């Protein structure tokens, strides 16, 4: 029986006729349903905007989830899951503060120190996880041209009967596909910002093709494979080929799997390192106020330049940064490395070594494995 192996064949692009005459020659049929989906640029501004839009939608998702909106989907569920992720850390720090009362000044003093450490630890935890991701995302984008966080606008059609679906009352379907517009969506749809390469099984290849006569997404009328052609070069393809897409799709999939696997695993050494640093006393010798003051002072410089002189201000700025910021961090690293017992030495050094070595190994193996040169991809 083959029934059970039926799969949605999203990756197969069919250049068949659709029912929309104006785009009939170019847009594939199964694109029709996703024709409102739109690729964003992969620059930092677009990504930040996509993140902000998702973040501000969370309360809406919560409201819908709590009421059991039948169109509530897994993406929205994952967005809501960010709430416990961040609340958990804040609540943990707040719990540490709960024994405090104004009467027991000694205990309160100790409590403040502990709270400071826990709060720093929580912040370090979040920062370390982001950093772990960055150590993979950066090289992947740089060497392979694949931005794992490349956002796109996903438009989902609401089911009939959903009170949010206003198509019956207002049937004017707008064709404005501005990714940033909220009000111009068709009334029976909702949108979210997702990532093109998020899923290895449902990678949104369709958004990466350039279609003929798609003046909006392809104003220069570039060839259909233009994205894949560029990427193929980055993957080490030696000669130009017309089917660059089919050649490197497999490699991109491998890259996504490897990148995600490493990112998730790198969490472990990075958070260990982050928390290890957070519990070094040296870190708390930071004088961020002074750093900030002297920086502001330096920024204001032109106004006073004649009186004090550039050199003095620069020296002051340098000292403030090195004494108030760089040195405490450096010392925290050193004391984590040195440890005060054998066990702490082992743990501290392992965390530091792993956090340096594993990203290097990860990127090296990823680049090696996905290179078309190494793996006979050019044959």
């Amino acid at each position, binding site marked *: 029986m083959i029934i059970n192996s039926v799969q949605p064949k999203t990756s197969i692009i069919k250049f068949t006729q659709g029912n929309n005459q104006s785009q009939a020659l170019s847009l594939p049929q199964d694109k029709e349903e996703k024709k409102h989906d739109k690729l964003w640029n992969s620059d930092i501004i677009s990504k930040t905007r996509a993140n902000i839009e998702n973040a501000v939608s969370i309360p809406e998702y919560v409201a819908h989830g709590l009421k059991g909106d039948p169109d509530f989907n897994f993406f929205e569920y994952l967005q809501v899951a960010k709430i416990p992720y961040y609340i958990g850390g804040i*609540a943990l720090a707040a719990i540490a503060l709960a*024994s405090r009362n104004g009467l027991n000044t000694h205990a309160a003093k100790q409590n403040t120190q502990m709270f400071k450490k826990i709060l720093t630890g929580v912040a370090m935890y979040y920062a370390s996880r982001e950093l772990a991701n960055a150590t993979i995302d950066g090289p992947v984008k740089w060497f392979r041209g694949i931005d794992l966080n490349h956002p796109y606008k996903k438009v989902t059609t609401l089911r009939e009967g959903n009170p949010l679906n206003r198509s019956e009352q207002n049937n004017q379907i707008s064709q404005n596909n501005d990714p940033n517009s909220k009000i111009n969506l068709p009334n029976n749809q909702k949108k979210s910002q997702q990532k093109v390469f998020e899923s290895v099984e449902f990678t949104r290849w369709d958004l990466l093709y350039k279609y003929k006569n798609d003046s909006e997404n392809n104003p220069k009328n570039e060839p259909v494979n233009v994205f894949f052609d560029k990427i193929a070069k980055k993957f080490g393809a030696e000669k130009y080929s017309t089917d660059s897409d089919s050649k490197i799709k497999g490699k991109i999939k491998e890259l996504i799997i490897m990148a995600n696997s490493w990112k998730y695993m790198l969490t472990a050494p990075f958070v*260990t390192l982050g928390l290890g640093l957070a519990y070094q006393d040296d870190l708390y010798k930071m004088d961020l106020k002074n750093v900030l003051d002297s920086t502001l002072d330096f920024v204001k410089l032109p106004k006073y330049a004649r009186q004090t002189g550039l050199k003095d201000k620069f020296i002051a700025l340098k000292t403030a940064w090195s004494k108030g910021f760089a040195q405490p961090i450096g010392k925290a690293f050193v004391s984590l490395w040195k440890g005060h017992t054998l066990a702490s030495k082992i743990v501290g050094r392992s965390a530091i070594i792993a956090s340096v070595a594993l990203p290097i190994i990860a990127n090296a193996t990823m680049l090696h494995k996905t290179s078309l040169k190494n793996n006979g991809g050019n044959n």
Partner: protein
Amino acid sequence: MTSMIQAYVDIARRRAQATASQPQVIPAVRNQDDFRTHVKAYKPLGKLIRPDFIDIRGGVKKDINAIRYFIKGVQGEGNDYSTGRINDIGIKLGSLGIAGVLATTKGSPLTKGMEFVGAACWFAAMSLWPKLAIHTPIKMAKGVDLSLEYEPYPGHNKEKDVLAVRRKNFFEDPQYICWDLISDEEIYKMGDKMGIPKNIKNRRKAIENKARQIAIQGNTLALLTAGFATPLVASLAADTLSRKAVSPLLEKLQESKADKLKQQLIGTASTPIKNQADIEFIEKALSDKLTDNSRQEITNYFTNKLGLEGDKKAVTKTINAIFEASNNSNATIKLNDKLAEKLADTVIQNVSSERAKKLSRDNLIEAFKNVAQNYGENVSEATKTATGTTLSDYIYDTKDVLNELSGKLNKDLPKVEEAITKVFDDAKMVNVASPDTTKKQLQKVAELINTYSQRAEKDLDKLSRNALRYDSSSNARVWENASEEVLKAFNFSYGEIKKMQSREDNKLVQRLLSQKTNNLLSDDALFEKAIERLGKVAQNTSTKTNKHVDFMLDYVDTLQKTLNSEPHSSVIKGLSHHLNINLANERKDILSRYLSANGTMFAPIRGLNALKKASNMPEINQDILKTLVLNSQTVDNFINKLEALKDKITTQAEFNKYVDVIFGPLDDNVAKMLPDGLAKEINQNAELLKAMLTNLSDGVNRKFCTQMNQEEILSAIRNSKLEKYLDEYFDVSFRIRDDKNLEEMAYRNRLLDTITDKVRESRSKIDELKTFLRLDDITPETSIDDAVNIIKRELTGDGTLHRGFLENGQNRIKNLLDFLGNDSKELLFERLNIYRAKTIKTSSVTPLSMTDFIKDSVLKVAPHKTWVRRIGIAFAALCGITAIALTQIGQTNKFNPDIYHKRNNN
């Protein structure tokens, strides 16, 4: 048949294409109405899993698979599900890493262990909270099990390919729920529970929709509450575990570890340590030419092994004795031509070449020889020549030669002098009577130092580290428990405990304690309950303390025997005596801490006993007694209180009455309420404390700490008369520790002024003072002003007399006070204040008074009580909000209008 299959395949494919991002769920979503009448559904090939409430095996399996997914993943093999699992294991490993790195930062074994327990609690809370607070009530009320999991059909043998294994939550993605895996029967049962009408069209679909609504609502609620619930539940659970399981366990582990260590250490304590490196060092040092420098080297080598300055001095002294050296040196310099030549060469080498030309080597040699002629062949510090000249004289004279040349040497003079000094140092030879004896003596010194530094400094420290302090970390649980129990025994409420933390109102603790004590005294049942409670906890702590003290005393005794195992030669005796005194001080310290720890713990029992006993003694003023009971444990407190009560307690006999009541034996009734043996223990402790309190400085005390065992101490105390103690007690209070105290005393307390005022009254007073201050400078001819100056100088420590004053300080001050007479009572109490200030630092016997113990307990217990209360309230609030939210689950709302159509039965 084929066409039917084909029809199914087509429909399935069409649907699959229509919902492009549908995961690999088999079979595809169907609208039953489309098929049911035509084709019988195929048996679904996926698998439904109903996990146990606590599914450790499944969890471990998931984690192992996650590691396998990672291994596949880094090779580029995997899928969304497998990489998602790597995220889970990454977080878990990260938490382990965090626990590891936090456990290795500074902290007690408890806090270290708790890092791991805390991490485990966090994960347990994360998995249990939704199950317990969301899934279970929903399942009970609506029949929908949100914990349900399923495995989609893997397609091929999953044993071979781990990537084919996918275990997902059944309701995870509300858009793709694999309803085929649930039988009609089960669905309808669910529907009945949800209250879906029975006679409606397409009931199964209606139930599925309702279940989806419930799943979405439940999952969202679980997420919203998890952020608060996970840390709250985890910290409450970790706190409970820490108190009820981890600390008792750790305590047992530590105890057995300590027992092992003790056995090991007591086994080694009886053998002196002979260190091969030392023997080699001594051999080498003695084989070379023995100069004064090498003697210094040997001294440094040994003193570096010891930490304390006093010990270092003792060693230096002993080594000097071995080399028969005086304070400076016993070195001898041979005065021959060679030395003169060397000196001349040194001078020439150390001046600039220009100046060197002006100097004649021969003239220099001649000059140095001339100096040497006056001193004979050998010159040393000890052996004086007939003319009374010594080594230092010779060196002085030699350097004088240089001064004569100073015109020629000019700026090079200091440099030359330095070089010359070095020549002399090198030439200084040390006399050793017999190299063999010296070697043996040095080896003995090495042995003593090694044994002492290893055993008494390191091992003993290891043993006693905090073990006897009532607030030490190794005893922390016992004492925290004790603190809670004591507060409970006196029936303090949370509000009172909270208030008592404040430092603003000093008298608050005493006021509340006094009130609570009155309550206990007025009700026999309450009194008995309190004593029983206190007895139980006192038994616990004292058993632990006593066991340790017994061992420590044994250890010190063994060590003392080891150090004195063979008779020492006269030169070594000084050192061995010094080390013995050190050990005696250790012993004193152990006993002091023992008295402090037990004294603190017994104070409430003894105090309640005293108050109860005295309640029918008319001769005792209950208020005074209470003040003393609540505050009197240390000399410090006692004196302080006495000062406040000085108008009420005016005679020695009166004072004794109170001492006897407070430190007297326990009442028989009270003794009966206590565990076996505790009453005796408390009585002994009281006797010892009484002795310490009234007799700190002299007599019994000194012997007490150095030579006697506990039984002997007790008998010594019993034999001495308590009446004497009051007298002694005042004596104690004028223990002078060092010069600075004396000065402070003289200045700060106007003693001096008072004395000089007295002296000016009459000439006879001066004579009186002169005798006991031994002021020989004062003669009958001395004017009064001069005499006053001399006395002032004597008392303020100006000059040498001062030291003499200190040597016999106690008696002198006592005489001085006699001299001052009764009208100086105010002054006397001021002295007591001084004493108090100093005692805190000098006496290690510091049992807490009842009030202080309560205060200490409050500070120890209150923050945690506050914490538990606040976290409890927060948790209760969370549960309440969750419960309210749960009532809304499955209700009709705008998204779920619940419109059903009656089924047409025809």
